[in-house]
């Protein structure tokens, strides 16, 4: 086997094998478990580095395995998959460190980390899926691997949240499946290709294609939390903080958004999709979700719930960017895939630190928390400002390109106001938190857990948000330098448009 065939498999194996070994470990084997986790994550980062370099050189990485006549499992790395793979891999490493600290004293850790690794394996597989069939397989695997994580605590709320999650995602999975099968019967094997495949096939029934688009987007929209399919996300916040990070930033929601990008660009082709007139409805739903999520976020007192609604809103930027025809909007949407991930994971890490260290779960309990936990709160503030879209944090870049793209496509008249309104709303639900945290005098904390540590909390909890917040700043500041997410998004956009 040549490296180009082997590399995608190795990238999968680097989290799958540690995960499987971890399942068999006894609860007390903490060191070995952490060692396996971290070495898997680090090996994966190294392998992905190789992949980035190769794809940049236009090398082809592809693994193919026939499951049935005409149904191939294909792993294929192109520029878009590399973007998602590197995001997931990097954030997995950070989240693993965080989770090791976060779950230090809780039960069932072998189970947790086993499924955690499976979850990342599924995400990376989904990112490298080379056709719609493979995508569907990993999309469903992701659902399965996440369910035990959401249910992890075993409390009635956790089980209810997990059940709701599964009900939504399995129903969505079925819609996606039917759409994919239907498209397969019309158009053949559906290997993803830049610029789309359907535009080149003559004699396809346009109405069928529109129905299929609806099925696919509805199936993906469940994980991407598009209105009205978002109901599971706020309920799933009962899960432990590392799982929330996984759901909101690394894997699940991202998988949905990534799928939408894939379907629009590499199956339909954005230009062909515009011809079919399916993009505008998608754009309208995305825009509505952006505003709806923000409005709902304002009224939440529970910090994680507020962040969850914020995700509902923010992920739809990706769908919005996808729905606008034009390279600039594509750049905005695709780059937000990365930017939102980095910022949102910071926010969830910080929320987890507050809950774990001080027992603070509600916004109303956060008065003066900046003085007690300055590093965490600083990270939180940077990410929140980025979410609002303040330069030079990453979020600004995304919004800037989305706005430019809307103008370029001649749809500025309604999209720019949506973007502005959303920024105002973001400010309206984030600024009060920052004000409370930094400027109000502290109250007594609900339950202060670990006072033994010299710093504000455990180092493995304190550093991950700081690192990701710095990353959010750096990718914003150095957006124009080589290998930055923005530059990579530009590379993708340049390959997706034919004219």
């Amino acid at each position, binding site marked *: 086997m040549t490296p180009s065939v082997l590399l995608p498999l190795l990238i999968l194996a680097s989290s799958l094998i540690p995960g499987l070994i971890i399942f068999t470990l006894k609860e007390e084997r903490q060191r070995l478990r952490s060692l396996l986790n971290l070495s898997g994550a680090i090996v994966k980062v190294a392998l992905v580095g190789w992949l980035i370099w190769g794809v940049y050189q236009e090398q082809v990485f592809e693994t193919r395995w026939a499951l049935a006549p005409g149904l191939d499992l294909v792993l294929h790395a192109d520029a878009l998959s590399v973007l998602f793979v590197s995001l997931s891999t990097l954030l997995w490493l950070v989240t693993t460190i965080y989770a090791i600290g976060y779950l230090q004293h809780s039960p069932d850790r072998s189970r947790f980390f086993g499924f955690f690794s499976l979850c990342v394996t599924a995400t990376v597989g989904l990112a490298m899926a080379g056709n719609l069939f493979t995508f569907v397989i990993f999309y469903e695997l992701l659902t399965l691997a996440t369910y035990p994580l959401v249910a992890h605590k075993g409390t009635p709320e956790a089980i209810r949240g997990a059940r709701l999650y599964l009900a939504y995602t399995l129903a969505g999975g079925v819609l996606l499946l039917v759409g994919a*099968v239907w498209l397969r019967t019309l158009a053949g094997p559906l290997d993803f290709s830049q610029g789309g495949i359907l535009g080149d096939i003559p004699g396809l029934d346009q109405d069928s294609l529109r129905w299929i688009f609806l099925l696919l987007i509805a199936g993906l929209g469940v994980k991407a939390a598009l209105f009205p399919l978002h109901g599971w996300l706020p309920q799933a916040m009962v899960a432990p903080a590392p799982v929330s990070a996984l759901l909101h930033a690394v894997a699940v929601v991202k998988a949905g958004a990534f799928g939408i990008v894939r379907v629009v660009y590499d199956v339909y082709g954005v230009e062909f999709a515009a011809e079919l007139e399916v993009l505008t409805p998608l754009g309208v739903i995305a825009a509505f979700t952006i505003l709806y999520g923000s409005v709902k976020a304002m009224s939440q007192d529970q910090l994680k719930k507020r962040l969850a609604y914020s995700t509902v809103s923010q992920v739809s930027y990706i769908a919005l960017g996808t729905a606008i025809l034009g390279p600039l909007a594509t750049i905005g949407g695709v780059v937000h895939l990365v930017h939102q991930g980095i910022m949102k994971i910071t926010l969830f890490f910080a929320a987890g630190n507050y809950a774990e260290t001080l027992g603070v779960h509600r916004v109303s309990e956060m008065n003066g928390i900046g003085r007690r936990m300055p590093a965490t709160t600083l990270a939180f503030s940077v990410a929140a400002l980025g979410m609002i879209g303040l330069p030079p944090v990453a979020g600004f870049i995304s919004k800037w390109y989305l706005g430019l793209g809307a103008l370029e496509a001649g749809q500025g008249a309604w999209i720019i106001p949506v973007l502005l309104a959303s920024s105002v709303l973001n400010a309206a639900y984030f600024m009060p938190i920052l004000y409370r945290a930094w400027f109000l005098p502290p109250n007594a904390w609900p339950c202060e857990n670990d006072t033994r540590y010299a710093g504000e909390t455990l180092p493995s909890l304190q550093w991950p948000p700081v690192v990701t917040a710095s990353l959010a700043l750096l990718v914003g500041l150095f957006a124009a330098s080589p290998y930055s997410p923005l530059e990579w998004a530009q590379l993708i956009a340049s390959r997706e448009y034919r004219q």
Partner: protein
Amino acid sequence: MSDLLIALATLPLWASLGCLLWPRLADLLSPLVALALVGCSLLLLDAIAATPVILHHLGGWGGDLGISLRADALSALLLALGTVVTLAATLFARRYFTDDQVRYRFWPLWWLLNGAINALLLSADLFNLYVTLELLGLSAAALCTLGKDKPQALRAALRYLLLGLIGSLLYLTGVALVYAEYGTLAIPSLAQQIQASPASLTALLLLSSGLLIKCALLPLHIWLPAAHSSAPAPVSAVLSALVVKVTFYLLLRLWFELFTAVITPAFATLIGTMGATAVIWGSWRALMSTRLKLMAAYSTVSQMGYLFLFVPILLALPDHDSRALAFGALVLFALNHGIAKAALFLAIGIIQQRLGHDQVDRINGVARQLPVTLFAVALAGSALVGLPPSGAFLAKWTLISASLVTAQWWWLLVAVIGTLLAAAYLVRVLGAAFAPAEPPPPTGKQLLSGELPALLLAAMATLGLGLGAAPIWSLLAPTGLGNIL
């Protein structure tokens, strides 16, 4: 190669005799026999890849007079399923029965049942098939009586026996009619002769209805839930995984090899509709069941329904290639269900022995008590739901695809609703098992070797059949299915 056929057909019968004569050796003998049979069936698969049809006349009596054994890809695949499931269940059964008296009665019947299954799959004559069917029904009903809850098990076994006998009688009447009309009962020569005629149609209806009772196709399923849920765990596994499946195999032979000329689209639609009702009703009753074993039994009703859904679709498909694809998917679905359901019943057996009951509402804490077994339940459940990468996922993909190609989208709807209901009953069980128990149950030692057969089977259904299914189509390609492929 003929030796393989003879070994597969007779070895279980010798084993049965051996276990009867030397009951104390049964525990030692049985795994060896099971292992040898797995070896034979794998060698047979290998041989089939080279020679598509293997025929052997016992005692050298050729033609329609003697007993002949015949194997092709379809029977070889089902034999492989049968021997693998039997091996796992045999290893499980060694630890399952604690009472010596039960054990002594169990092993001879167990190998008799297994012999009947193998003989059925190797027979090429309608009357020999009748004999194997009777043997199958009698030994299966006798095994059912070994269940723990005596009165209930006896009642279920009696009902099973009675309905099985009615089925056999209907079948026998059909056989008589065929003999009167065509003067032979050998499948190869009948396949050339059968024409559409009122007598053929009557024979088809008699044969089919007899077998449909044994297959438990709704509304003829009433005996199944009680029988499968009250039998001992290894027996339930084999009943659900193999016994109903081999009767379905026989139906396939009848419909698509012998009576192709007689089968009308209306007949196929009727069968498909019954299958569709079974899918929905079976899944619904599984969801509503309060006991794990009953849930698994109703799940069998629903999974058998899927197999019948393929019938109208197979007939409606336009060309040879798409039929071959759909037929491969049908076989894959049957194999997937066989392995996954056996795994599920074995895993439930462990839970039931450990907790002393199998009430779904009271299995909280199992996630921590029996993690390996619960993992097996989850894996087997995913394969039953049809989640990737299980074999059922590929099969369902093909089913949905074929129903779209033939513009029969209602079958698609049935498959989707059935899948969601199946996911619902799986989640119900997993959710209950994840709930913490108050007070925490003792996490005593569970011997891994007891849990291993279920886990390995479950992994085989989810990973093995999903990722390694491609050879099924290439094996089936030369012979396909008689007259329609």
